[in-house]
């Protein structure tokens, strides 16, 4: 792990000097801002039962589906397309360090983007001057959920990027993986055919991995170690497959 920080600082530096980072950040914040103002407008019309933070994080999947593939599609596919992976791997650097460095940089950017949306709540708080709207519980829970689930989502994006040398393919693949993980589990959990008694264990499993349910738990302040374990193990698995993906491509290149 000697080179991890060299690689990480290099990646962060590359992100900071790249205009696409700033464009992506701006678009993300613009979009989240629209959602946020939309929520506030609803609140101004009628009284709501839950806090704005709670509603805000219900929309987490939308930016995830689009931002994560955009952030991660480049990381390994680009290296392979340019051939710089060859110069990189002929230094005393291991594939693991390369993949982890790229992953960590993408994750940091993802978390930073989400952290920036904290500004919305701050503005709301300053504007309203009343802690009534700012419910600390769902807010902290929501951000914690984003941080923890981000580990897994970014790892999936890195995995997609490790499988191809074409960025567009990596982005589409990442998008499909995320839709399957977020939307697919939700769909399965809601489908009626799993309600039969014989399929009970399957139903339980699907319920356990349902990401939208995790979000509800986190914003309600319930932090279940089983859910943490789900994201952590998913992350580790996706990263191991990414490393294997890079190495397998070398073997058969």
């Amino acid at each position, binding site marked *: 792990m000697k*080179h991890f920080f060299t690689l990480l600082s290099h990646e962060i530096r590359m992100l900071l000097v790249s205009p696409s980072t700033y464009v992506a950040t701006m678009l993300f914040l613009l979009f989240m801002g629209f959602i946020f103002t939309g929520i506030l407008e609803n609140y101004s019309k009628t009284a709501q039962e839950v806090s704005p933070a709670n509603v805000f994080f219900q929309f987490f999947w939308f930016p995830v589906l689009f931002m994560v593939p955009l952030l991660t599609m480049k990381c390994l596919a680009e290296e392979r397309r*340019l*051939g710089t992976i060859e110069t990189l791997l002929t230094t005393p650097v291991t594939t693991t360090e390369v993949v982890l460095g790229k992953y960590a940089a993408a994750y940091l950017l993802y978390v930073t983007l989400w952290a920036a949306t904290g500004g919305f709540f701050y503005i709301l708080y300053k504007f309203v001057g009343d802690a009534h709207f700012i419910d600390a519980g769902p807010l902290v829970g929501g951000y914690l959920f984003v941080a923890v689930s981000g580990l897994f989502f970014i790892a999936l994006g890195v995995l997609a990027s490790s499988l191809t040398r074409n960025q567009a393919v990596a982005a589409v693949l990442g998008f499909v993986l995320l839709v399957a993980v977020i939307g697919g589990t939700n769909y399965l959990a809601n489908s009626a055919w799993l309600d039969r008694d014989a399929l009970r264990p399957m139903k339980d499993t699907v319920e356990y991995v349902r990401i939208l349910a995790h979000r509800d738990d986190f914003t309600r302040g319930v932090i279940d170690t089983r859910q943490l374990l789900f994201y952590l193990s998913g992350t580790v698995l996706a990263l191991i497959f990414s490393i294997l993906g890079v190495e397998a491509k070398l073997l058969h290149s």
Partner: protein
Amino acid sequence: MPDTPAIAVTHLVKSYAGVAAVSDISFTVARGEILGFLGPNGAGKSTTMRILTGYLPATSGNVNICGISVASHPDEVKRRIGYMPENNPLPEDMRVSEYLYFRGRLKEIQRRKLGPRIDEVLELCDLKRVRHKIIGKLSKGFRQRVGIAESILAEPPVIIMDEPTIGLDPHQILIVRDLIASLRGRMTVIISSHILPEIEMTCDRVLIINQGRVVAQGTPTDLRREILGHSTYQLELAGDLAALPPLLATVEPTLRLTAQSETDAAGFHSLTLTTERADELGEPLLRTLTAGGYRLRSLSRAHPTLEDVFLAATRRSWDVKSEDIRKS
């Protein structure tokens, strides 16, 4: 262990999906030697180089760099090599000095020594003017030199360069050649190239491979003698050509007339003579011909270029291969 060879390759085989790219290559390179690696496209040059760097695993065989096996200690080997791949891939959006700094850190050069070392290689490769330029905006010649600077950055004992002079203008080729020559004795260098005079001028030894096999190796002079097996003289003379062959036989029995041109306006023919003798026959030839009443306008010994050797060697290996096919 100064007596272990810098690179020792024994019975190296690499096959892709059943097709052998490299079949049973063996060679050694002594420390401080510069080896030129020649072969037509698809001969297995790049594959061999990638295996030497530990980037690709070999199917079978053994590669030792400075006495360390590439397969069992890839990390140790990677600390001892500088590698510049084919087409010299570089990140587009970094500055030259930033890139060298990053690579230096990856190659485990101490931070304290890295700054002066970067200045040194920038100076060596004549890159000082562009040190703050973005790599993606540099011309091909500069990019190529950035690649070379990067490969010698950590002062590794072994340097492997895949076509380092491709796309350079003659002036830049000269710089690169001097640069590689300046490494002689200190570092072991393997370069592959299509530009044969290039190889001839810089390399101590040449290895020609074709279709995954070594077809010839040795110094350029040895190769000439071994592969071509004869020397050629070119002369222009006037006189009776019919009486020439017996006269030639008195100089050297194997001397033959292989080509002759029409008589020109002044009555002279251009002739090509070949002989199996390797030493110089110019003087006896000149004496005999003038004594025999011929008028001689010019006499020169043709120096076969490495190109001729290369063509002859690769052709020979194709002939051998097609014979094998016919037999089986």
